[in-house]
């Protein structure tokens, strides 16, 4: 009996081997539904694409553009066209050579409205693409381009696997993607994990990269400590201390120019009045909102504190409930236990946030109780990303939003604050700020640009279109077993070819 039981027990306990030595396992909140550079919708897909595909250019370690599939390039003196010579001997995962036709095909497929690619906007500036020979591509632009190579990071696809320029989500490429990167996709597994194996002949140091779906970020940190994962793309602030103290884990800081904010809908009757917005700025205790969720800097304007554009002369609006009460009264509101508007109705604000913003729920609940205790009712709304796009971006159906903006190294806030900005869903309009932003965009003098944007900071702070909250310190975490790690702040795996296990 024991002879049967013991093996059964052992089998049940499943004493199996761990993953093979050269495997890097990392976690995503949600596994990609499709690994296809033309139809990328989420960051987890972008990260997977980074492993499997390559673009003409990519970031070098100084975060400046460097040739990747391109070997060399030349921009015409009038800056209306460029010629790119491709690297010799690059092959696709199926062995076919990568040629200029593939580049032309990719650009045309991205631009084709029939394909409804999510990346169509990335090639809108290219007027035409031509293959001059197997290794040379000529691009012409719609307008003069100062640094076209910065915009050529999109991934190149193999023309020979498609008919013409027709690319469909339902095609076989979906399950068997073919790229030119150092790894190729071996399997989409049942448990939503993805296995990618090193291409033969590649000198990458990771034999295998496995993506696992683990929706709980807290559990992701635990798994890293259990050595069930080797990499975490982003660590929650509250897990930092535990991970820092673990000798088998190393933290890598992200340089993200990102900040949280409470944005006011500029056209809502209550929030139209500057006194009300100012009152809310004095009423909210920002430090108290930040304390439970992590460490970071509290801001006074639309830049992170270390930004050259940050105006350190703009004072922080003090947390002053009495001043807030004064301002509300001046705006025509009365207080009898709750704040009542000029129409006699209770002041109620709907605050929306998106559910996949970590810790936003905690902040919103906290905010609700803060304002509730001061006599303002807050109705929190936790929206899914789809609802967010619908309600906030298209319908502008909110009073206040709690959200975060992330900027790349250029910290360009035009889209958020210019009246013509494509991301200005708050409806902020200031001719002064418009003028400053227009001038800053075209300035070629760094000190002038710096001065202009600092003025923008001051102007925006004075208008109170939002309560600027904070930046959070952000880190990735990796097992110390992984060597030579440098993490790209946006795509994570850009330099994974150098990593080794």
């Amino acid at each position, binding site marked *: 009996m024991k002879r049967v039981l013991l093996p059964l027990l052992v089998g049940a306990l499943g004493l199996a081997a761990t993953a093979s030595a050269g495997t890097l396992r990392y976690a995503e909140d949600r596994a990609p539904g499709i690994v296809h550079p033309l139809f990328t919708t989420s960051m987890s897909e972008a990260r997977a694409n980074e492993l499997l595909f390559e673009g003409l250019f990519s970031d070098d370690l100084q975060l400046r553009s460097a040739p990747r599939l391109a070997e060399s390039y030349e921009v015409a003196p009038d800056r209306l066209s460029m010629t790119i010579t491709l690297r010799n001997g690059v092959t696709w995962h199926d062995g076919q050579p990568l040629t200029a036709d593939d580049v032309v095909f990719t650009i045309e497929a991205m631009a084709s*409205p029939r394909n409804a*690619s999510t990346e169509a*906007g990335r090639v809108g500036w290219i007027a035409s693409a031509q293959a001059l020979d197997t290794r040379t591509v000529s691009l012409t632009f719609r307008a003069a381009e100062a640094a076209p190579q910065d915009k050529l990071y999109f991934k190149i696809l193999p023309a020979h696997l498609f008919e013409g320029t027709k690319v469909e989500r339902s095609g076989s490429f979906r399950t068997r993607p073919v790229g030119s990167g150092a790894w190729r996709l071996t399997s989409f597994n049942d448990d*939503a994990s993805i296995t990618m194996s090193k291409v033969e002949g590649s000198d990458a140091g990771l034999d295998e990269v496995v993506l*696992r779906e683990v929706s709980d970020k807290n559990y992701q940190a635990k798994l890293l400590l*259990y050595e*069930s994962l080797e990499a975490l793309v982003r660590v929650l602030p509250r897990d930092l201390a535990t991970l820092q103290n673990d000798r088998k884990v190393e933290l890598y800081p992200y340089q993200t120019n990102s900040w949280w904010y409470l944005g006011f809908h500029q056209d809502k009757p209550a929030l139209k009045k500057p006194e009300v917005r100012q009152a809310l700025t004095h009423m909210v205790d920002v430090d108290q909102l930040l304390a439970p969720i992590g460490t970071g800097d509290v801001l006074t304007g639309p830049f992170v504190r270390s930004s050259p554009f940050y105006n350190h002369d703009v004072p922080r609006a003090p947390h002053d409930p009495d001043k807030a009460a004064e301002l509300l009264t001046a705006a025509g509101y009365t207080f009898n236990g709750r704040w009542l508007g000029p129409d006699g109705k209770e002041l109620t604000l709907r605050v929306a946030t998106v559910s996949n913003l970590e810790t936003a729920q905690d902040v919103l609940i906290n905010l609700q109780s803060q304002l509730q205790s001061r006599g303002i009712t807050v109705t929190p709304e936790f929206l899914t990303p*789809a609802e967010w*796009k*619908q309600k906030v971006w298209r319908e502008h159906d909110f009073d206040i939003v709690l959200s975060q903006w992330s900027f790349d190294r250029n910290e360009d806030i035009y889209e958020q604050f210019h009246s013509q900005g494509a991301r200005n869903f708050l409806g902020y309009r200031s001719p002064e700020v418009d003028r400053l932003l227009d001038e800053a965009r075209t300035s070629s003098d760094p000190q002038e640009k710096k001065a202009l944007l600092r003025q923008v900071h001051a102007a925006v702070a004075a208008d109170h279109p939002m309560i600027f909250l904070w930046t959070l310190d952000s880190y990735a975490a990796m097992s110390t077993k992984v060597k030579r790690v440098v993490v790209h702040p946006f795509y994570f795996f850009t330099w994974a070819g150098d990593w080794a296990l």
Partner: protein
Amino acid sequence: MTRVVVTRGAWAALTLLGAVGFSFALVVWAPGDPIDLLPNADAVRPTLEARWRLDQSPLQRMASWWRLLLAGDLGTSLSYRPGAPVWEVIRQPVVATGLRVLAALAVAITTGSVLALRTGGQRRSRTRLLVQLASLAPLFLLAHGAVAVLNEGAFALMQAGWMGRPGWFALPDQASLLRSSLAIGLLAVGSSSLHEVHAEIEHAVAHLQESPFVDAARARGEATWPLLLRHLLPTACSVAASRVGWLLGGSVVVEKLLLLPGAGAVLWNAALLRDYEVVLGLTLVAATAVVVARLLADLARVWLDPRLRASA
């Protein structure tokens, strides 16, 4: 009996139709669609709406969905696994979850019945208290706690060198008996199935213990358990049927927390991605399961209970 089968069958079919129709209505009239999630939604909306037939009226969409369904096609996934046939996406997860749910059901019924037979008729019972307490905790809490205890315990043992790294630990690469058993156990207990079975059967047992024919059998010196069993079967069936829905709901939680592949995880992700084709496919399967379970339970009751059979 045939009349019963036909009538109940017809009602079941109608219920199913109604349930699926209702789900369809919910999905169609809910605000937003999968296109919203795309970064350049506005630019691609005209093309995709036409291709995915989202620009048709709800009734048209319902009609074409039914048409496809009758032809055996559950549709194509839009955003969860773009381009994949829904049946291909949900087939394996449905089987996995289905087996798990059936196992949980079996565990709940057998354990619940055995316990109930022991405690039925007793005024105070420790076992009853335990079962009630166990069912108080919400499923996600139970599952979370079980996973945490198991992992932390194993990790501590591993650190101390007492155990090698088990295959089921933390983030398993393949299926394992322990994990599946844990899932089944949690489902059975956490979804209150065990408790419900126990309570219902206990009640029936108590009632039966005092019934005249059982007394008569006891007086005759015959064993009472075959009688009890026979009379308990109908109750067990109806309780089982009523729990299927709860178990399906519970499996979403258990699968997410134990990181097991299954219909629950698929439903969760597909819903977040607004992939209504997949969501409807899963809803159809779930509704069918529930309706069929109830139908079978109903028919079983009629068949088993001579009084009902006679009146049918």
